[in-house]
């Protein structure tokens, strides 16, 4: 019981630290975005010469992309699982026949 309480506190602390890292990382992401923008001026000179620019994804790009995956992924899982549920019900109905009415 005591161990559980200590673990709960440690867990809360870990989550709090993780959550605190979020704004820090967003700030870092914005900073790195600015850096790329600054650098991109010099790259533009090269671009004018016809070179192709391949921009590396920033932290913000990664986070936005993973947010998109979160939404699509969870919807995807529920859709697939939903279809499996419907199939199981249909299968049961097909094999067992319609449920008998209780008199």
């Amino acid at each position, binding site marked *: 019981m005591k161990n*559980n*309480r200590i*673990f*709960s506190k440690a*867990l*809360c602390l*870990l*989550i709090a630290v*993780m959550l605190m*890292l*979020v704004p820090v*990382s*967003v700030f*870092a*992401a914005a900073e790195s975005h600015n850096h790329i923008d600054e650098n991109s001026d010099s790259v533009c000179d090269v671009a004018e010469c016809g070179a192709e620019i391949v921009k590396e*994804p920033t*932290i913000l790009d*990664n*986070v936005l*992309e*993973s*947010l998109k*995956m*979160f939404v*699509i*992924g*969870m919807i*995807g*899982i*529920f*859709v*697939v*699982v*939903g*279809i*499996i*549920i419907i*199939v*199981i*019900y249909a*299968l*049961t109905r097909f*094999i*067992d026949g319609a449920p008998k009415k209780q008199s």
Partner: protein
Amino acid sequence: MKELLSIFENFGNLDIGMVVMWVIGGILIYLAIAKDMEPTLLLPMGFGTILVNLPLSGAIGEEGPLTVLFNAGIANELFPLLLFIGIGAMIDFEPLLSNPKLLLFGAAAQSGIFITMILASFFFTLPEAASIGIIGAADGPTAIFVANTLLGTNSNITGAIMVAAYSYMALVPVIQPPVIKLVTTKKERQIKMAYAGKPVKKLTKILFPIIVTIVAGLFAPQSVALVGFLMFGNLIRACGVLDALSETAQKVLANLITIFLGITVSVQMTADKFLNWTTLLIIALGLFAFVFDTAGGVLFAKLINLFSKKKINPMIGAAGISAFPMSSRVVHKLGIEEDPSNFLLPHTVGINVSGQIASVIAGGLILNFFG
């Protein structure tokens, strides 16, 4: 004298990192033997860690037997898939087939994968973040399969992902109860649930693995290997005419692959790859994934309670992680602690096997994102 001294030559190649890895290997062996935590995997992994961290170890390197095994069974994802045949043969889907709605809980409990992926994407590239998130699948073979497919075999973080995945699976009885208690009230934990399981016909049990494979394959083609091997193992069990094969898959095949998988995974656990801050971060993120899986399942059950007249015990949502059968037992035990007459096991087992299916689908969907 010179020849005698040459015996000690290899001591010069020893570094502190290797010694630290021996200690880590020793801890894994201790946890396996003394604490009975996933001994089938942690013990071979622990010993393998020591084996690969000996200076100039002959076990690894181009022609080292562990590297040969790694290339033959893990680099091409063969071992995790073969293990899935054994796992499929072990699972009885009857509780799920008699109450298919339980699958929804399995789906909800995969939220930890994606939430962790978002968090990991602050520190890692997207494929790395996805591979770290999949620790939340609470399913070792899926984690290995996805991480290897997305990152390749030379990634420095694959070893840490595998260790985190298997360690947290072993720590489910420690991780889940406090999280469940944090997000539920005592009154909620005392909700009694009656079980009215219907008998399931053999034909349903036979058709189920075939249909699931087709449905999952149509929506997430990358999941076909994972789902297919799992369901093939289950078909061997359900058909009723291959008892010898079913038994072999459950015992001999699963044990054999587990031995090779455990010791071969340790190829990734050399000091140069493992001892860094990234490993610690991955282990922290892995814990985060398990916590959010558990919380996601419980919160989903609470959401259903908002709309349902017949209240369900929200704790059963936590069994949606695929650590089978540990998670179902943990939740059942918690239910008994709150009310000794509350028998949640039939519900939690059904949800636990749902988690197995949902985690494999989640792995397949993630692979699909990256093409």
